[in-house]
């Protein structure tokens, strides 16, 4: 087991899973408590347009996806609130629109789009060092923003109308939150890919909710869960030669099911009820 750690690709994979679990642990909590899972999924999928753009321009697709995900966050956040048609329909339209742009651009790019699959389904065992630095930089921006706007984000998520009445620019705060979610998605792409990103944004946060009623503790617990389970997933995918992203999600889902089941049994027997601190 330990000789595995000598391989640099394993070291990179472990570093990537730690960086990813910090981002998804913190931001996933907002996604879950504000109930914006669907719009987050929309931003993630629409970001595929950025992957296509990267291929088309011949640059690292990660640099294509970064501006594109921010743009789709801003467009979705603005259009879905201002439009007369229902919010979920708007998200559905933009979701597929972004993906379609990506597919067309990849198709227009001459030659074979190598490792396109790693952006769709992730492959944590092939994360290059350069991407790690990008992930680290994004983590710092995400953490910094959450520290600066902690009380505003909490108020926004709990009661948006009251926050507006308090005189705060709630629409701008909401767009900022969506942009931070977009950055988180960029961090997570290499780990699980665009298609599975939403699992990392929801499962650890939902799991942490079973143990605490405090937002900060939720962030901490969900980061720990995400990190431990990702590392376990990497181990399993290496041992059984399975795709890493899907293996991580599978382990996450199974742990979630198991914890919910055990907790439900304990609660119904009177143990641990009301024990969330």
């Amino acid at each position, binding site marked *: 087991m330990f000789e595995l750690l000598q391989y640099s690709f394993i070291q990179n994979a472990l570093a990537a899973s730690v960086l990813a679990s910090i981002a998804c642990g913190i931001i996933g909590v907002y996604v879950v*408590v504000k*109930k914006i899972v669907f719009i987050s999924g929309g931003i993630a999928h629409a970001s595929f347009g950025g992957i296509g753009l990267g291929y088309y321009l011949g640059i690292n697709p990660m640099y294509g996806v970064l501006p594109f995900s921010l743009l789709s966050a801003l467009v979705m956040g603005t259009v879905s609130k201002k439009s007369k048609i229902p919010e979920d329909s708007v998200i559905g339209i933009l979701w597929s629109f972004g993906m379609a742009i990506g597919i067309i651009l990849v198709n227009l790019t001459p030659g074979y789009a190598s490792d396109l699959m790693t952006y769709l389904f992730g492959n944590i065992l092939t994360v290059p060092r350069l991407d790690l630095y990008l992930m680290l930089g994004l983590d710092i921006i995400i953490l910094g923003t959450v520290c*600066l*706007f902690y*009380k*505003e984000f*909490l*108020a926004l*998520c*709990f*009661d948006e*109308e*009251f*926050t*507006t*009445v*308090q*005189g*705060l620019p709630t629409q701008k705060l909401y767009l900022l939150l969506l942009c931070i979610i977009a950055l988180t998605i960029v961090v997570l792409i290499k780990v699980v890919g665009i298609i599975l990103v939403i699992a990392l944004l929801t499962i650890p946060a939902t799991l942490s*909710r079973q143990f*605490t*009623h*405090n*937002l900060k503790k*939720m962030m901490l617990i969900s980061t720990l869960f995400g990190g431990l389970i990702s590392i376990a997933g990497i181990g399993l995918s290496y041992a059984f030669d399975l795709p890493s992203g899907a293996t991580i999600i599978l382990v996450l889902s199974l742990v979630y099911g198991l914890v919910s089941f055990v907790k439900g049994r304990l609660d119904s027997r009177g143990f641990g009820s*009301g024990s*969330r601190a």
Partner: protein
Amino acid sequence: MTEKKVIEMKDVWVRYGNQIILEAVNLDLDKPGGLLGIIGPNGGGKTTFLKILLGLLEPYRGSVKLFGKTPEKSRDLVGYVPQYKGFDYDFPISVWEVVLTGRLSHAGFLKRYGQEDKGAALKALETVEMLEFKDRQIGQLSGGQRQRVLIARALASHPKLLLLDEPDSGLDPHMQDELYRLLGRLKKDMAIVMVTHDLSAVSVYVDKIACLNRKLHYHNSKEIPVEDLEATYQCPVELIAHGIPHRVLGRHKN
């Protein structure tokens, strides 16, 4: 400041699509204290009326002034208590954190809540007698307690006008009475406007009553002519005033 009218609504109309929600609403409230109860059926435009006062909606005709300024510019003087039923009570937030959000505009961006904010939040919790529940998660409270926490959140910013949206709905009579007594104490320091669909809310603590069903019937008094009430509810209404030492309804003319 004090000579400015608390609320001045002139010929306010609100439309949603082709539907008229509020029609030619006029309201003058000049005293800095007292409790105005606005009763009306569901769908009568009560929530819209409050949203106009909060600057969340723009009337398509007419003008609204609070303390001589537009609602958006007078937000620091207004406290808002929404219906407590609309919340996700599983939300990971404590009573203390909820009340502190009432200090957001005072605390300022990018800063933590200061001593002054914490002091104001403590005092607001004391006023509504909820200080001992300060560390509870909001979901672990009863309906009446949640309502009190939302009032404390509004009080934390020291408002001069307090707006409440159906604060009595879903509370049992005992809790309702406690709520009215609390409002009765608060109305000495601020003007309070409470909308409700519950006729029994017209209690001893209410100073003035208006009826709202698209149009606002308001006579600057506590008596409601039966005609107004019937125009509002569009059916014959008989109000049984239990143990109230004054007349709520005007006498029938014949």
